[in-house]
C-alpha cells in the first residue's frame, strides 16, 4: 500500500521540479516580452522569494508539526542566514558604493575607521556560506540547550523564543552593532562574479531556490521516515511517555531545533540576494508568527503543506497588498483564525476533512451501529500535540 503512494509522490515531485526548474525559467527567458506565455522578471523574482519562504515554513513545520515545538524564533534564524550572506555581498560591492570606499556605505556614514574584525573573513564566499548555517545553528544550540535542559516546553518555549527574537531584533536595530542598524544591508551588486541586477542571475537564483526547496523537502522526508522521526512524533504526542521509555527527549529536541535553525538560515541566505536587502524588520516576532500562519494554512504535520501554504498565502498577500492595501492585515488575521478554528489539517487536510464530514452526514442519515472505518478519520492531524498532553 505504501509503495504506489510513494511512487505517486515521486512523480508529483518530479513534475513540480520540472515545471519549477525548466518550464518557468524558459518562459521567462525565451518568449517575447508581450507574449501571453511570458513570465516577467518581477514574477520570477517573486516566485523565488516565495520558495525561500517555503524553506522557512518547512523548518517551522518540522518543529511544530512533527515535534510539537512552536518556535517563534525561526524568523531570527532566517534573518541571521540572510545577514551572513548579506555581509559577504556588502564586501563585494567594493568601490562601487555611494562613497566609493572599500568599506560598506553605512560604515563610512557611521564613521568606522576600518572594517571590524568579525567582518574580515566574510570576504571569502566559503566562509560566508558556512556562517549561513553555522551562526543560526550555534545560536539554536546554545539557546536550545538552555531551554530543553530546564524542560521548558509548550507555550513557555514559544514565549521564550519570542523573547529571544525580540531581544535580537532590538540589538540589530542599534547602529553600533556593526550590522547597519535600522537600514540593514542593501545595495548589493555581485555574487560569485555574477551581476545581481541582471535577469539571468535572478533566474539562476530562482532555480537555486527550487533546488533548495527540493533538497530540504527530500531531507525532511527522509528524516521523518527514520526511527528518529518516530521518536520525534512520539515527543509531540506524549513527551512524558517518551521520557519514561528511556529516551533523552531533550537531545532529540535539541537536534531538531538546531537542524531547523540551519534550514531557516539557508532559506534566508537565498532570500537576501533575490530581495536585495536585509534589515532587522525581517526578524520581527510577527514574521515568525507569519511563517506559522503559512504552515497552519498549508497543513501542519505534512511536508507538502508548508510549501503550499507559504506560496499560496504569499501570492495572495502580494495580490491583496496591491488591490486593497488597507484590509490585508484584517484578511490575514481572519484567515489565521479560520484556519485554526475550522481547518486543523490546513489545505492539505481539506479533502480528508470534507470526506469525514460527508461520512458523518451519511451516518447521520442512515446510522450504522459500528462505523466501519472509524479509525481512518483520525488520520487528520487532529490528534496533534497538546490535546493528548494536556488532560
Amino acid at each position, binding site marked *: 500500500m505504501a509503495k504506489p503512494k510513494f511512487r505517486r509522490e515521486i512523480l508529483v515531485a518530479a513534475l513540480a521540479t520540472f515545471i519549477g526548474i525548466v518550464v518557468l525559467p524558459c518562459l521567462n527567458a525565451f518568449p517575447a516580452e508581450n507574449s501571453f506565455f511570458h513570465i516577467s522578471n518581477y514574477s520570477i523574482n517573486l516566485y523565488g522569494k516565495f520558495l525561500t519562504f517555503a524553506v522557512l515554513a518547512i523548518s517551522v513545520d518540522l518543529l511544530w508539526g512533527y515535534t510539537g515545538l512552536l518556535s517563534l524564533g525561526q524568523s531570527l534564524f532566517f534573518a541571521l542566514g540572510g545577514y551572513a550572506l548579506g555581509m559577504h555581498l556588502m564586501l563585494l560591492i567594493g568601490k562601487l558604493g555611494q562613497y566609493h570606499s572599500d568599506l560598506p556605505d553605512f560604515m563610512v556614514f557611521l564613521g568606522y575607521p576600518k572594517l571590524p574584525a568579525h567582518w574580515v573573513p566574510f570576504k571569502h564566499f566559503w566562509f560566508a556560506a558556512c556562517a549561513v548555517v553555522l551562526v543560526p545553528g550555534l545560536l539554536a544550540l546554545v539557546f536550545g540547550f538552555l531551554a530543553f535542559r530546564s524542560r521548558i516546553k509548550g*507555550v513557555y518555549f514559544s514565549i521564550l523564543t519570542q*523573547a*529571544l527574537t525580540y*531581544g535580537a531584533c532590538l540589538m540589530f536595530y542599534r547602529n553600533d552593532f556593526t550590522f547597519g542598524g535600522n537600514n540593514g544591508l542593501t545595495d548589493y551588486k555581485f555574487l560569485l562574479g555574477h551581476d545581481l541586477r541582471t535577469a539571468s542571475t535572478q533566474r539562476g537564483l530562482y532555480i537555486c531556490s527550487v533546488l533548495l526547496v527540493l533538497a530540504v523537502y527530500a531531507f525532511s522526508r527522509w528524516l521523518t521516515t527514520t526511527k528518529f522521526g518516530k521518536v520525534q512524533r512520539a515527543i509531540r504526542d506524549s513527551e*512524558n511517555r517518551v521520557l519514561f521509555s528511556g529516551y533523552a527527549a531533550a537531545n532529540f529536541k535539541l537536534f531538531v531545533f538546531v537542524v531547523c535553525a540551519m534550514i531557516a538560515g539557508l532559506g534566508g541566505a537565498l532570500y537576501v540576494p533575490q530581495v536585495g536587502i536585509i534589515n532587522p524588520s525581517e526578524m520581527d516576532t510577527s514574521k515568525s*508568527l507569519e511563517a*506559522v500562519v503559512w504552515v497552519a494554512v498549508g497543513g501542519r504535520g505534512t511536508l507538502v503543506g508548508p510549501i503550499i501554504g507559504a506560496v499560496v498565502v504569499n501570492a495572495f498577500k502580494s495580490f491583496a497588498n496591491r488591490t486593497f492595501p488597507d484590509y490585508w*492585515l484584517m484578511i490575514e488575521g481572519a484567515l*489565521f483564525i479560520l484556519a485554526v478554528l475550522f481547518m486543523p489539517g490546513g489545505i492539505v487536510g481539506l479533502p480528508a476533512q470534507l470526506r469525514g464530514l460527508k461520512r458523518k452526514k451519511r451516518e447521520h442519515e442512515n446510522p450504522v451501529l459500528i462505523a466501519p472505518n472509524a479509525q481512518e478519520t483520525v488520520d487528520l492531524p487532529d490528534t496533534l500535540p497538546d490535546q493528548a498532553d494536556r*488532560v
Partner: protein
Amino acid sequence: MKSKISWIPILISLVALVPGVVAGAPATSAAKATSDAQALKQLAQAIASESEADQIALTKALAATESQAIKKGLITWNEGGVYLYDSGTAKIPYVLEDAVDADGKQKADRVDTGEALKDDKGQPLLFVSSDLTAVDTSSGLRRAIQTTLDMLALADPDPQARRSAVMKLGMSQKQIYIPLLQDRQTKEKDKTVLAGLDEALALIGLGDSDPAAQDKAIRRLGEIHSIGSRQLLSTIANNPNSPNAKSASASVKLIDEHISWINFYGTLFRGLSEGSILLVAALGLAITFGLMGVINMAHGEFIAVGAYSAFVVQNIFGQGLALSPFGMNVSIPGMKLTGSAFDCYFIVALPLAFISAALVGLLLERSVIQFLYRRPLESLLATWGVSLMLQQAFRLIFGAANVQMISPSWLSGNVTIDDVGLGYNRLFVIGFAVVIVIATWLVLTKTPLGLLIRAVMQKRDMAACIGVRTERVNMMTFALGSGLAGLAGAFLSQIGNVGAGLGQTYIVDCFMTVVVGGVGNLVGTVCSALGIGVVDESLQPWIGPVMGKITVLAIIILFLQWRPAGLFVTKSRSLEG
C-alpha cells in the same frame, strides 16, 4: 504611603472646584491691584525725575512696594525701551507695543497705567521707534534697577520663584547681597525658601576673605548637602594654599554621599514606577494566561482598547471627535469643558476603559477562545490573528498616526523630596498599581465570583460536577482579565504614545513578567514586575535603554534555567503541573 501622596493633587483639584474658594479670590486681587497701581505710579515718577540722584533714590524705594507689576517696566527701562512724552503739563513715560502697523508705527502704552497714550483729542498716539530717543540710564542707575529687581524677586508671592531668586543671588557669590538675604531671612516663613536662604548665605560666605568665616560656610554647605556648591567646594579642596582645603574636601565627600543616595532613591523610584507600569499591564494577563491558561496574544490590543477609550472620553469632554472608519462619517459632539472639569475626564475614562475592554474580551471569548481551551498553542495563533485584526481596525478608525492625549493637570508636574524629583504621573501609577492589585486580590478571594473562578481554574471537572456553570465562569474570568488590560491602557495613555502599535510594545514584556512570576500566582506577578522594573532602571544609566532591555531579557532566560516554573511555583502532583 506613596499611594497617599499621589492622591494629594486630586484632592487639591477637588478643593479648587468648591465655589466658595473661587468666589473668595477676586476680593484679594482687588486689594492688590491698588497697591500695584501705586507702585506703577511711583515707577513713572522715578523715570520722569530730572536728576540722576533722585532717580536712584526713587528706584531703590520701589523695592519696598514688593509689587510684581513693576518688574516689566523696570526691565524695559534697564534695556533702554522707555520713552518720555511731553504733554506740556507733565512728562509721561511710555513704552511701545510690539505690533508694528503698515506705516512702521507703533502704539504707545503709559508706564503708570498701562493704558494707551492719547493726545488732547483722545486719539491714540503712534510713534516710529527710530525717531525716538530712550530715557538714558547711567551705570549707577542700572545697578540700582538691578538691585530693586532682585529684591522684588525675593518678594515674589510664589515660593518656588522666591527660592530660585535666592539661589541666583547665592550663586553670584557677591558680598553685597548679604544684608538683602539676611533681611529676607527675618521675614521669610516658607521652609524651602528659608533653606534656600541658608544655602545662599553659606555660598556667599565661601568667598569670605576671613578663613574662619569661610570654614564655617564650607562646613554648613557640607551639612546641608548643597549639590550646587560641589563645584566651588572642590575648587577650594584642590587648592593646596587654602587653609580650609581639608574641611572643603570633607564637605565634598558629604555631598557626594548625598548624591549617590539621591541616585539610589531616584533609581529605586523610577524602577518601582516602571515595575508598576509593567504590573498594571501584566495583571490582566496574569489572569487570562496565569489562571486560565489562554495565551492571549491580543492582550496588548486590549490595552490599546482601553487607551483609545480614554482618548474618546477625553474628546467628548473636550472639543468632540470626528472619525471616518470604513468610509463612514461619525462625529461625536464634545462638551467643550475646560480646566478642572475637563481634567475629570480621566476619572470617567477609567471605568469606561474597563467596560469596553471587558466587552471586547467577552466577544473574543465567545467567538474564538471557548473552542480552544484544551489547545493552548492554537489559542496563541488564533489570538494573534485577532491582534492583527484589532490593530488594523484601530488604524482604520483612529488613523495611522498616534493620537493626541492631554493629561489632566494634576498628573503633570512633580514634587521634589530631598532633591529626588518625583513625577506625579509616576507616583500615581504606583498608587494605581497598589489599588488595582488589592482590588483584584479582593475580587478573587472575597467574592462569590472569585470563589467560582478559583474552583474552575483548579479543577474544572469537579467544579462542573457540583453544579458550577464553568462556561459562564470562563466568560467572566476572561472578561475580568481583559477589563484589567483596558484599565491599564487608560493609564498608559497618560505615560506613552497612543497608537495602533501600543499593544505590541507591551506584549513581550507582559508575558515575560507573568512567566517569571510563576504562572497562576498574583504575588509572583507583583514581585517579578517590580523586580524587572528595578533591574531595568538600574541597568539603564550604564548601558542605555536598549541594551538594558536586551540584558533584562537575557537575565530572564538565564533565570528560568534556575527556576523553570518562575518565582513562585504552584505545587501540584499532576505530571504536566
